[in-house]
């Protein structure tokens, strides 16, 4: 009976993941090692040519840029999001309202919000109009279609994914621990590095993964805010499947990204397990 109910509970999920996650994944993996078809698609055969092609400096450069941007976006989200998570976790009266404000952007489509940023950043946009109007600058600043714009878009889009897991781990933090540390002579900075940060590390790691992984694969933000110059690996993959009609190469590129993600996840798990032991930080 018990086994039957377990399977009834697991069954639909397992079927769904198998049919719509594992199978397409295997198809992409298969496509990445097959010759390219003349009119798109693939032809029978086996080749590692697409992976070799990905090692071309041109593509490695795109990959490197993507990693740097995703990493910068993660770092920026952490620096901006941690204090916000702390304030929400510590507030009593306004906690629900603040949490609502954090998830409020999700009520609008990501695409719409990214378009809105164009209106903010372009030469005749809100920021430049205000600065020109105030007489602080004479010519409009080039904000749109720059790495800065892409980073801004990534941080804006993924910040809630950083705030929420950190909030969840800070909220569980027993205030008596902070008082104990304070009573034992720990000043505010020491309290942060020896108690608060180590105990919120699981949230920091979860948040960082939730930002870094999707940022690594994102293409809408760089497409709209970065223009043609600021290509990320996501744009590359998208192009191969659409305009370039090179499915095998697109597949190989996406598997390369996935390998990178696996490395990031593996590293962060190791970091979490070691970080829990807590070398003296301050």
């Amino acid at each position: 009976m018990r086994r039957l109910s377990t399977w009834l509970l697991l069954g639909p999920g397992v079927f769904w993941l198998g049919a719509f996650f594992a199978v397409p994944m295997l198809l992409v993996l298969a496509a990445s090692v097959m010759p390219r078809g003349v009119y798109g698609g693939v032809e029978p055969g086996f080749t590692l040519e697409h992976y070799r092609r990905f090692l071309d400096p041109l593509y490695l450069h795109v990959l490197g840029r993507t990693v740097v941007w995703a990493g910068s976006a993660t770092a920026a989200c952490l620096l901006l999001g941690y204090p916000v998570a702390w304030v929400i976790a510590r507030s009593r009266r306004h906690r629900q309202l603040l949490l609502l404000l954090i998830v409020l952007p999700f009520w609008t489509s990501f695409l719409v919000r990214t378009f809105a940023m164009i209106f903010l950043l372009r030469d005749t946009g809100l920021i430049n109009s205000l600065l020109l109007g105030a007489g602080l600058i004479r010519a409009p600043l080039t904000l749109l279609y720059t790495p800065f714009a892409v980073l801004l878009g990534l941080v804006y889009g993924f910040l809630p994914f950083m705030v929420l897991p950190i909030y969840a781990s800070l909220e569980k933090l027993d205030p008596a621990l902070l008082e104990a540390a304070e009573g034992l002579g720990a000043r505010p900075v020491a309290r942060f590095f020896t108690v608060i940060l180590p105990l919120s590390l699981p949230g920091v790691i979860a948040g960082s993964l939730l930002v870094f992984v999707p940022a690594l694969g994102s293409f809408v933000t760089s497409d709209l805010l970065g223009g043609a110059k600021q290509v990320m690996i996501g744009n590359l993959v998208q192009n191969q499947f659409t305009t370039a009609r090179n499915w095998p190469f697109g597949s190989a590129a996406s598997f390369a990204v996935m390998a990178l993600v696996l490395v990031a996840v593996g590293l962060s798990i190791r970091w979490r397990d070691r970080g829990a032991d807590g070398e003296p930080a301050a």
Partner: protein
Amino acid sequence: MPIVEFLQVSKRFGRVTAVDAVSFAIQRGEFFSLLGPSGCGKTTTLRLLAGFEQPDAGEIRVAGASMRDTPPYERKLGMVFQSYALFPHLSVERNVAYGLERRRLPRAAIAAQVARALELVRLPTAEFAGRRPAQLSGGQRQRVALARALVLEPEILLLDEPLGAIDLQLRKAMQLELKQLNRALGITFVYVTHDQDEALSMSDRIAVMDRGRVAQLGTPAEIYESPRTAFVAGFIGESNLLPGPGGRGVVVRPERIELRTPGEPPAGWESLAGRVDEVIYLGERLRILVALADGGRVNATLPNQGQLTRPVGWARGDDVMVCWRAGDGRTLEDA
């Protein structure tokens, strides 16, 4: 000079006055208890002393110096929390070392002092140093919390219901150990508890708190023998509240009551007539409840000397005379 002084200290939380113009002084080396029911302000009083709360009025002095502008991390008080508040991510050794690390002592000195502190609370270093708090029993956590506070050699140790979460057997043993630590180390203990037995058996002096005020302050014997208010009499030990002169209440402890066959009381004794309502066997004692003629009730506790099997023993329905020495009745100030 007293080591701790509270001068008209008040603390409000919103509309609730948790501590209301409290004044007292604690002497160096004393085992001082703050005793009272939950919500009486005893924990807030302790937290004010620790510096986790700021008084709205009045002044707190430690060794003569005002604590007004001294943050907790500079007060050099040890604190043992009700929940122990051990750092879950650190080993027992690193928990105890925490305060020493903040003082940036050399590693070797830290290791030596940690080992000594663990020995003091009888936790073998070899066995426990590497464990995490989650791998310890309640009693062991209690000892680690104690070691963590004592390793800094504070002049004052604050304990907030430290034995509340420990089972009875261990609690009795820990009470004795705490008392012995207090004597052996010469550290002033400020001990918050709602357990009257604990306060009576360990303290040099007790401040009984009631609704944010100190209802009575004195030695355990003073408080037990001469309660000043009905609250103190009722909270500490068992008591009988009987009508006294001038309409004020008189408190007589159950063990000071004698039961006699109706007649004339001896000279210097007070008496009331009643009927035995219930005889309760408690092992080493017998509790006899007597219904008074005027509708009140008296609880008399007699030592178990085999009365149940002897003809002098009392039985339900017997007419009795409830007697006590006039000197054993305490006239209350408030009722």
